[in-house]
């Protein structure tokens, strides 16, 4: 199918919206009626047709507008994109991985022509047509990581692997769930995860790191993570929290369906060939409560998950104050019927909402 790109904003008037297709393929992150941190990782080897798992780097209707938003964030704050000096090779690895993947997975949108180290890259949605020399930074307008991540949805952490640990030594981070690349750069896996509650005690990070250190080239992995965001704001950074924090207090019972968004991150893990670095794309998908509620299974389940979520997690994720209002809204979509296992919407088999 040909993709129509939305002309929309993730700030000010928040004209962001999901088409019916985008709602149906939204990565609803709960496979059962409750949620707790776990080492929830699986191979990233495609998925159902047209699902967000199908391609290595999913391109959707928000692509062009998201890239416009990223450019604005970087113009305001260049520290959102940083690469320590030893990470340049990993940047080229990443540029290659994305260009090859996108040109193979979306040949009508992206083209890569290679003649030795003379590369020709065509990005039709963004109107880019560049010739450059692979591994020669002077032939690109930005460093290789910045160049390609300005053209790819999702945040990117590039992790150096040494001393049996991963080190956050480069990244482009403009759509983050309230953490700072500038502060965390140079930290190891346990240090940047330090603020997360409960998971350290459960041994989750020790096991997760072991898994990540062993990821092989050509065998990427993935997991989902989630939080809540009022308004479809991509840049929920700590840097700008003094500006956007107030929006959390703007929810009312009347506007919550439209304003409250479930924010889901598709996190993938790829080993890079030359640098042996690991790249961690964090792709953010937003969906308004009222759109989620069009899927009966998700309505029932979201109410149960949010109701039973441990207080530590609701606090860490920043919605503890709004939880009662969310539950008032969500409870109307929970008729108590059982739900089927798994994250998929099951529109055809799941019963419609029983109203009394």
């Amino acid at each position, binding site marked *: 199918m040909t993709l129509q790109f939305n002309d929309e904003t993730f700030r000010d008037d928040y004209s962001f919206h999901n088409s019916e297709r985008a709602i149906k393929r939204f990565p609803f992150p709960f496979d059962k009626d409750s949620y707790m941190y776990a080492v929830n990782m699986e191979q990233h080897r495609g998925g159902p047709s047209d699902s967000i798992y199908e391609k290595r780097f999913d391109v959707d209707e928000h692509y062009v507008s998201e890239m416009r938003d990223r450019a604005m964030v970087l113009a305001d704050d260049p*520290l959102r994109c940083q690469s320590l000096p030893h990470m340049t090779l990993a940047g080229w690895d990443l540029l290659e991985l994305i260009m090859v993947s996108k040109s193979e997975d979306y040949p009508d949108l992206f083209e890569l022509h290679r003649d030795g180290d003379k590369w020709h890259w065509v990005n039709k949605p963004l109107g880019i047509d560049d010739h450059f020399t692979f591994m020669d930074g002077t032939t690109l307008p930005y460093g290789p990581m910045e160049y390609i991540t300005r053209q790819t949805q999702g945040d990117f952490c590039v992790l150096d692997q040494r001393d049996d640990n991963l080190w956050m030594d480069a990244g482009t981070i403009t759509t983050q769930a309230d953490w*700072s690349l*500038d*502060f*965390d*750069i*140079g*930290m190891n896996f*346990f*240090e*940047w*995860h*330090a*603020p997360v509650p409960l998971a*350290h005690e459960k041994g989750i990070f020790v096991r997760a790191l072991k898994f990540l250190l062993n990821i092989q080239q050509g065998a990427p992995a993935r997991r989902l993570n989630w939080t809540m965001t009022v308004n479809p704001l991509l840049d929920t950074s*700590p*840097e*700008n*929290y*003094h*500006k*956007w*924090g*107030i929006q*959390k*207090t703007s929810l009312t019972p009347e506007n919550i369906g439209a304003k409250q968004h479930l924010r889901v991150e598709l996190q993938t893990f790829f080993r890079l060939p030359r640098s042996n670095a690991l790249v961690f794309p964090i792709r953010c998908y937003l969906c308004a409560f009222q759109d989620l509620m069009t899927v009966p299974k998700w309505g029932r389940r979201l109410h149960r998950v949010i109701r039973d979520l441990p207080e530590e997690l609701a606090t860490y994720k920043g919605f503890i*104050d709004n939880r009662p209002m969310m539950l008032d809204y969500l409870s109307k979509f929970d008729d108590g019927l059982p739900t089927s296992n798994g994250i998929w919407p099951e529109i055809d088999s799941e019963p419609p909402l029983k109203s009394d």
Partner: protein
Amino acid sequence: MPKFEFPTSILSRPVYGVLEARAGHQHLMIADAEGAEAILDIATPDLMAKTHIIYIPKGTDFADELRALNPAQFYQGPSYAASVSRIQRVLQDAAMGLQLYLAGTEGLMGQVQSEAMKAGIPHTAIQTEHRGSTARRMQCVHCKGITEDVATDPFQCSHCNLNLFVRDHYSRRIAAYQAVCIDAEDPGYVPAQKGLYE
């Protein structure tokens, strides 16, 4: 002065030990304020004959006692800012096997550690001992400005004037804890200041 026991915290928060004399031909000890006492505790004439001490009194009067240890080299600096280029210079040609000892406030130890890492000394090879003030070196996550010697929570950013709360999340590279706006969701409502650890 009794030593302060920091409560256990998250994994990015530094933990400090107790200095002990190690074997080596070259010893560099950098301290501020009450950190002098940690040096006095391990000093022997033999060790001092191989030791370079860099000391920033911060209004205390331990300098004469340190000088009386007769170290191979002694420098007293009026402030960290005034001493940092000297510290960088000394770290630059620190031979392999240099023993580095840091003592005093978290701000001093953190900043020297960050310089040492830039000079190629792994942070795990550096000994540290906290003494004296428990005030913290804080970075405002909003404007990136550093406020030194923060002893209360919340506090006001010395650069952008936002009211900030004190987190335990710590960056070794920046040598500071993270500070975040406290009244973003309720502008103007700033809770009364309390001392750290109170």
